[in-house]
């Protein structure tokens, strides 16, 4: 029994240790550019954490997580700007709407038996439909987008200091990491992995694959919608190309794949690495538009070529290599 509690404690201790260490960042630097980059990294980590539940654990690769990110962003903005809701209530509403949309899209797609590339493409199409409609409809502000009124007060979820946003984002990411770790250790998590590894076998063993996958996409969508809602709250503006753009679908899948697919820390590691890479290439080649991003893309290809199982896989390989070297 005591052994059980010991492993339990160590399983969560590493998450809290990493979070505590990261929480010190604003004390080490007061430079807004660095803090802003960190907020963006955490935002992408959060979006990627959502993607990772569905893509990493359940093995259902989505190309359209922008549909949840964008719905979260629009929902929090419109609930406040048009319906006068409190910012925190709107944030919760955005997560709820994102989850509901996830359940709907998941139910429709999984009930039709869409797997692999087909599922990926249907999510992409859903994101595009939402983008086109949001861009044309008056309710979402059309192509001009929707603004949130600037009124910097904590009760409005608007903070004067970048550091506060950083801590809020870090808290969200940490909560999701703890939830992910709990999921890993739960029966539900085992069902997800079983479906990822072999759906037919999982079904034969009595796993209700449709139900489990719909639950996974609902949770996944809720987390990514939270990232979108936080984005809107941070920038106080949303338009269709930001909210439902393909870039966000791509970043949401890039971050966990780079960091380590189906791992608790993967999205955070990937987001910090990619944001660092983006900042570094901007510093080296930022003067010519496009050159920094081209360099970023090239480094991405090289990273995949040399670390095919993600950064965490790379460290595991290095460690194995080192211990082998020591043994011989």
């Amino acid at each position, binding site marked *: 029994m005591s052994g059980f509690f010991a492993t339990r404690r160590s399983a969560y201790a590493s998450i809290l240790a990493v979070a505590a260490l990261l929480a010190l960042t604003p004390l080490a630097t007061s430079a807004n550019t660095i803090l802003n980059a960190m907020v963006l990294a955490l935002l992408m980590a959060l979006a990627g954490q959502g993607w990772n539940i569905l893509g990493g654990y359940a093995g259902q*690769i989505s190309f359209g997580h922008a549909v949840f990110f964008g719905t979260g962003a629009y929902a929090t903005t419109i609930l406040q700007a048009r319906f006068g809701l409190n910012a925190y209530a709107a944030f919760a509403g955005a997560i709820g709407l994102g989850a509901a949309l996830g359940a709907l899209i998941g139910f*429709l*797609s999984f009930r*039709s*038996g*869409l797997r692999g*590339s*087909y599922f*990926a*493409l*249907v999510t*992409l*199409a*859903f994101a*595009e*439909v939402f983008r*086109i*409609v949001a*861009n*044309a409809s008056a309710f979402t502000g059309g192509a001009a987008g929707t603004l949130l009124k600037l009124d910097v007060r904590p009760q409005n979820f608007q903070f004067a200091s970048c550091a506060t946003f950083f801590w809020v984002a870090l808290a969200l990411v940490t909560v999701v990491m703890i939830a992910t770790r709990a999921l890993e250790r739960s029966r539900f998590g085992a069902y997800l992995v079983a479906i990822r590894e072999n759906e037919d076998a999982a079904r034969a063993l009595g796993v209700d694959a449709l139900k489990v996958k719909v639950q996974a996409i609902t949770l996944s969508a809720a987390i990514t919608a939270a990232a979108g809602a936080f984005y809107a709250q941070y920038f106080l503006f949303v338009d269709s190309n930001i909210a439902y753009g393909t870039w966000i679908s*791509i970043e949401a*899948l*890039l971050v966990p*794949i*780079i960091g380590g*697919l189906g791992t608790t820390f993967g999205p955070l590691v990937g987001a910090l690495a990619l944001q660092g890479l983006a900042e570094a290439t901007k510093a080296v080649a930022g003067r*010519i*538009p*496009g*050159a*920094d*991003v*081209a360099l*970023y*893309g*090239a480094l*991405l*290809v*090289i990273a*995949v*070529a040399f670390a*095919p199982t993600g950064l965490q896989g790379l460290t595991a390989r290095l460690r194995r290599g080192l211990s082998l070297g020591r043994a011989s």
Partner: protein
Amino acid sequence: MFAPEIVIAAVINGLLTGAVYALVSVALTLVYGVLHIINFAHGAILTAAMFAAFFASQAGVDPLVALFGLAPLFFALGYATQRYVIGPASHGRDSNILLVTLGLSIVIENALLAAFGSDTRTIDTPYGFSTIDLGFIFLPMPRVIAFGVTCLVAALLWALLTRTDTGKAIRAVAKEKLGAALVGIDVTHIYAVTFGIGAACLAVAACVLLPSYYVQPRAGEAYTLVAFTVVVLGGMGSVPGAVIGGLFIGVVESLSGLYFGESLGQLGIFLIFILALLLRPTGLFGARG
């Protein structure tokens, strides 16, 4: 409601647009059918080819002539990209292929942006603004040419796949990679050849597209999503399916633009796409997935 002439005109216009969609989609479906990868770099390769055609035209070579040089050039580039970049870098894992083609598209698009800026460029051809009068509709010449060239390329591709040994090898690899390798087919080579053919098709598409379209570093992107739709509608990996699917999507876009208004024209495409996936995921023309 609209007068029947307007509807017929919209359908014909849609077929002309659809021909270019078909050409772009044939390349995508071929690569998907054989390599089983979703090539994210597809749009970027198209853009690169459009830039190549643009500079050929600046140098005084008509795109329709440049086509004969650019198609082999892009075949070689595509072959090399698959053989020396995508293949080795992806270690055969699907998620890695995805990342590598994504990375490639980022590199190509932004290298073009760094080199040429984000201005949209157009070219002048002697036939750019000429039309064919059918009595109730004027057909723009460049798009009629695009339609003709697409039909020709589709026929050539069909002949290649069914009548030649390389075509047989490509189809064998698409069906059963391991079996093909066992009877002595060089799978790595066939992969690269297929990717090369895809890139060559894109070069042809770029050459017929340019006289009536514009080029800038993200010009190809609009075609990528449409091509995905067409490929799924036609049944993934099916070349005739992609041709018919492309024409069909062109008509759908044209008609939904007519009925819903220009800004929602592409909405019809994606709604049909979603419905098709949910109701008939093996494609409208494909018997199998």
